[in-house]
């Protein structure tokens, strides 16, 4: 490890880094703008100037940009040198000449990197007395606000949006001191990762528009570490609350999962927490529970459970704790997983493959480091958006490595590397039913029906290993594709195979497993990623329970009196008729949920369940990583965690298996004790008794304001602040002010670093893992030495059937998820219901674009407007799944027209 001398003090630093990274990693305060740990250096802002000396005797030195200078052994430099200091102060003075006088009305204020850096350099007074340049703003859609006057031309936005995230509609225009960052014309930013601009931008050019609706400064928010509920990837987030509503979601760095970024569904999908459709008080038969018939609520519940035949229906969007307590309450024999038949089969298959196979599941960061990617039947941009961002990085890995070796530039020299890389891409193959956004990066993208995708997958695995079944009757084109993919994967070191719930086909998942396992057999370090539909799909499957259709059989045989449904809208799991039938045949429904939905209409007892912001719990993501999320605020209504409601029901009914469980820690250790698969989840975060220097960790920053006035309109005497008996976090601003354990960082802040860039101070090195390790624990280890259970059954090729269409599911980042559509901005970007047909099929059924196609399925009439897309295989029809107005619950399925 090289030794560098900073201000005559020797420091050991890591090789291959630049001086800025080295200084920041050492904890020194050096201002910067254009550099970002995920984007590398371009040396555009001239802010991070330091002085470098030739040797010990050199007293004059030269000013260099520290982000452009590699670390060398025995290098001598100075951060505190007066020339370097005054250079930095002048640079920021120039950057600020045109900065508008509007911090008071700027949403970035208080978490602004420009403010922090200005204070850090000591540029306290404006010397410039002349006119300021101004710009007109653009409308950028429902997620981001544009205020170009505040721009300091660091180019971070385009470098992230275009270069990193592959967006096409944000660019830099004009010339010299007139450069303009925006779109070619007003309009919604198309990228699914546009929200990150609010964090990437060091000042307030791009700010969070949903935050603007209920604006709160960062210092005024009660924040807690949380986990995104938008899809199965489990990205880490920080949720901030003020006056009883959630105000903002920001990224919580986790070096193994989401890194520095989030997708827009995750960032903006929080507004359901504040929805007016929230269930706020318990209801019995649609009237307030307390005093209903003069009986206390718990007695109502008791009378519906004790000496009755009760079933419990779990939920993939509820925490592990809630599902576990429900399972204990009703007994394992009566516990059903509240997921559709297709999702159940797909997720249990994926789990089986990860548990029994020798290939590991890739984390998002491992996926970003893959050198060849094969995507089978998955539109990852819509089913697991952040995985698409990882794939975009993976495609760059080989060309970047070549550039580093051939041109001899370090990887952080972003502009030079991009110049060397040009348009060359690493191998990515996509087989999907439709075109995807990633197709533009792919060496090959092929579109066909799910069964045919699986057949090509099986073909690839056969070419890799003779142990795999041969696919007979494959077309020449199919053979060629399989050959090409097999050759590429064989030459890769860390190939990644992606499949999942997107295609709705088990055969595709089996094919993906076969390919990965065949590669593993060849001694290649292959990785597998299976996407799963919801935030706790994997955890629910690992917990285990019966299929929902068997619950239906039970109910139809009149063997059930009461169903306890946990955070689930069964109208999204069963088709409309089956669900109606279910509710008609059952006497009492006890539902715990956040929002009024069709299932809530049918509930006899309705209990208000806390959302992620009002609950503590654990989620297991698609790679079986268990992660804890913490309650952000106490709602002040009857809303509480589902597991707490169920524990109270357990007490009321005298349930022995739940006896003695009161707090989160009790439940978590009960899970770890009873279920072997979850061993270790009790150590994810320190328990409720954890203290640093005898203190809890505060959820509120030390500048939190208004404590003695917030509730003064109700009563001038301040109430006692709420206590958190479940965790080591407190709901107040009192507590330990140092670095908390990595799994419980409520917000990123460090003296002098108010913006999100302060995450540097929480990492072992810039861009590296958080101190004391990235949070979360992977529960499944690959079964390396066991027998690999290859799949031998190759599906038959897909043939269009006369008079029939195969419905294939199409997922939408905005719309397919149940809760995020309650955000108006996401609802605005949601597609209207449709059915997608090939033009030949449209001819066959005598419809054209925009016509309504009518069909009857299971006695239910469906009428959907037609969209024509010739990429779709003939005989297949695409339907969007999960949209609020779509009623078809089961796809894929064959329907008669």
């Amino acid at each position, binding site marked *: 490890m090289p030794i560098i001398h900073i201000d005559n003090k020797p420091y050991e630093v890591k090789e291959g880094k630049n001086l800025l990274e080295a200084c920041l990693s050492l904890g020194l305060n050096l201002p910067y703008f254009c550099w970002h740990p995920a984007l590398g250096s371009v040396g555009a802002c001239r802010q991070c100037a330091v002085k470098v000396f030739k040797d010990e005797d050199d007293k004059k030195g030269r000013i260099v940009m520290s982000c452009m200078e590699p670390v060398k052994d025995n290098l001598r430099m100075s951060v505190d040198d007066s020339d370097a200091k005054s250079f930095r102060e002048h640079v920021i003075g120039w950057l600020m000449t045109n900065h508008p*006088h509007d*911090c*008071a009305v700027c949403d970035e204020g208080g978490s602004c990197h420009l403010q922090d850096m200005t204070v850090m350099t000591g540029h306290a007074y404006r010397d410039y007395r002349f006119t300021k340049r101004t*710009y007109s703003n653009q409308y950028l859609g429902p997620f981001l606000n544009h205020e170009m006057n505040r721009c300091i031309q660091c180019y971070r936005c385009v470098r992230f949006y275009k270069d990193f995230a592959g967006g096409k509609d944000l660019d830099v225009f004009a010339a010299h001191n007139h450069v303009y960052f925006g779109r070619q014309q007003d309009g919604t930013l198309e990228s699914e990762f546009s929200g990150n601009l609010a964090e990437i931008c060091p000042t307030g050019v791009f700010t969070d528009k949903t935050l603007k609706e209920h604006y709160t400064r960062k210092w005024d928010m009660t924040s807690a570490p949380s986990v995104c509920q938008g899809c199965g990837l489990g990205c880490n987030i920080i949720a901030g609350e003020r006056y009883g509503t959630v105000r903002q979601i920001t990224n919580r760095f986790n070096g193994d999962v989401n890194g520095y970024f989030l997708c827009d569904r995750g960032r903006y999908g929080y507004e359901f927490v504040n929805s007016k459709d929230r269930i706020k008080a318990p209801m019995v038969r649609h009237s307030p529970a307390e005093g209903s018939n003069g009986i206390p609520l718990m007695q109502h519940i008791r009378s519906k459970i004790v000496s009755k035949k009760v079933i419990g229906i779990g939920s993939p969007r509820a925490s592990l704790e809630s599902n576990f307590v429900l399972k204990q309450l009703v007994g394992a024999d009566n516990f059903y997983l509240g997921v559709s038949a297709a999702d159940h089969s797909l997720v249990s298959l994926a789990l089986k493959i990860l548990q029994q196979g020798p290939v590991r599941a890739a984390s998002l960061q491992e996926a970003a480091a893959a050198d060849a990617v094969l995507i089978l039947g998955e539109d990852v941009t819509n089913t697991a958006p952040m995985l698409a961002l990882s794939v975009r990085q993976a495609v760059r890995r080989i060309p970047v490595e070549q550039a580093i070796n051939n041109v001899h530039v370090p990887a952080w020299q972003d502009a030079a590397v991009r110049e060397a890389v040009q348009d060359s891409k690493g191998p990515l193959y996509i087989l999907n039913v439709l075109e995807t956004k990633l197709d533009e990066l792919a060496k090959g993208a092929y579109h066909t029906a799910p069964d045919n995708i699986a057949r090509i997958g099986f073909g690839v695995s056969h070419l890799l290993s003779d142990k795999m079944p041969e696919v007979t009757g494959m077309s020449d084109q199919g053979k060629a594709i399989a050959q090409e993919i097999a050759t590429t994967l064989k030459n890769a070191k860390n190939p990644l195979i992606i499949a999942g719930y997107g295609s709705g086909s088990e055969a595709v998942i089996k094919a993906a497993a076969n390919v990965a396992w065949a590669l593993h057999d060849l001694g290649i370090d292959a990785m597998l990623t299976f996407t799963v539909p919801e935030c706790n799909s994997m955890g629910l499957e690992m917990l285990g329970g019966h299929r929902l259709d068997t619950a239906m059989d039970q109910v139809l045989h009149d063997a059930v009196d009461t169903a306890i449904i946990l955070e689930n809208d069964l109208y999204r799991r069963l088709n409309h008729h089956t669900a109606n039938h279910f509710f008609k045949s059952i006497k009492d429904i006890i539902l715990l949920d956040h929002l009024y939905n069709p299932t809530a209409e049918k509930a006899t007892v309705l209990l208000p369940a806390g959302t992620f912001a009002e609950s503590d719990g654990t989620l297991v993501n698609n790679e079986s990583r268990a992660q804890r999320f913490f309650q952000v605020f106490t709602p002040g209504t009857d809303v509480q965690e589902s597991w707490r409601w169920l524990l109270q029901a357990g007490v009321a009914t005298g349930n022995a298996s739940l006896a003695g469980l009161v707090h989160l820690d009790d439940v978590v250790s009960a899970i770890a004790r009873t279920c072997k698969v979850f061993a270790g989840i009790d150590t994810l975060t320190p328990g409720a008794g954890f203290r640093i220097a005898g203190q809890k960790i505060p959820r509120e920053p030390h500048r939190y*304001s208004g404590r003695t006035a917030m509730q*003064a*309109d109700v009563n001038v005497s301040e109430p006692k602040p709420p206590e958190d008996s479940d965790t080591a976090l407190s709901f107040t601003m009192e507590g330990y002010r140092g670095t908390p354990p990595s799994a419980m960082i409520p917000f990123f802040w460090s003296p002098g670093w108010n913006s999100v860039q302060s995450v540097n101070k929480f990492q072992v090195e810039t861009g590296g893992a958080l101190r004391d390790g990235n949070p979360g624990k992977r529960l499944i280890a690959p079964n390396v030495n066991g027998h690999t259970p290859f799949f031998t059954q190759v599906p038959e090729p897909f043939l269009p059937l006369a008079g029939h269409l195969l419905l294939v599911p199409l997922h939408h980042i905005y719309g397919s998820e149940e809760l995020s559509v309650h955000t108006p901005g996401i609802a605005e970007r949601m597609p209207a219901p449709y059915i997608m047909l090939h033009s030949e099929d449209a001819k066959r059924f005598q419809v054209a674009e925009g016509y309504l196609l009518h069909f009857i399925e299971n006695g239910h009439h469906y009428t959907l407007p037609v969209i024509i897309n010739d990429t779709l295989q003939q005989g297949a029809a695409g339907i969007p799944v999960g949209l609020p107005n779509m009623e078809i619950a089961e796809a894929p399925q064959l329907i008669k027209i």
Partner: protein
Amino acid sequence: MLSLVRSMWLIFLHMFHKRETFQYPEQKAPLPARWRGRIALTRDPDGGERCVGCYLCAAACPVDCISLQATEDESGRRYPEFFRINFSRCIFCGFCEEACPTYAIQLLPDYEMAEYNRQNLVYEKEDLLINSEGKYPGYNYYNIAGLAIKGKDKGEAQDEEPPVDVKSLIP
């Protein structure tokens, strides 16, 4: 003995001095304009609310007795949806006035705020807003800030050039 007589003489003389005691409440002490008394929210020269809801007063307040919620009207102007000062906590330090970037919050030479009921010391925005520009007549934040509002577009604030023509390449 002599000192006693001297003291009595001095006290006797005070009968003919000017009185320091004010006969409050009939008579009131003249206070300087910078007296830190009751807090008020002032208005722009054109009568609009000066407060833009930036939360700086709340952050500066050492006893945390200010709470507010910023919102925006249809013309793009920020204003507080509610603005509450709990005067039963206020220590009249004037930090809020110092922190205010728009001269909206000002401390007035008014100290007559006693109440029998503590709850009455909680002032809402309606109680705080006055029909005056206070100590800084003529100041209008939006004339200086680069943010466009209705009636004042980009480039129309003080010392601003007209908006850049993005399509022009002329230096």
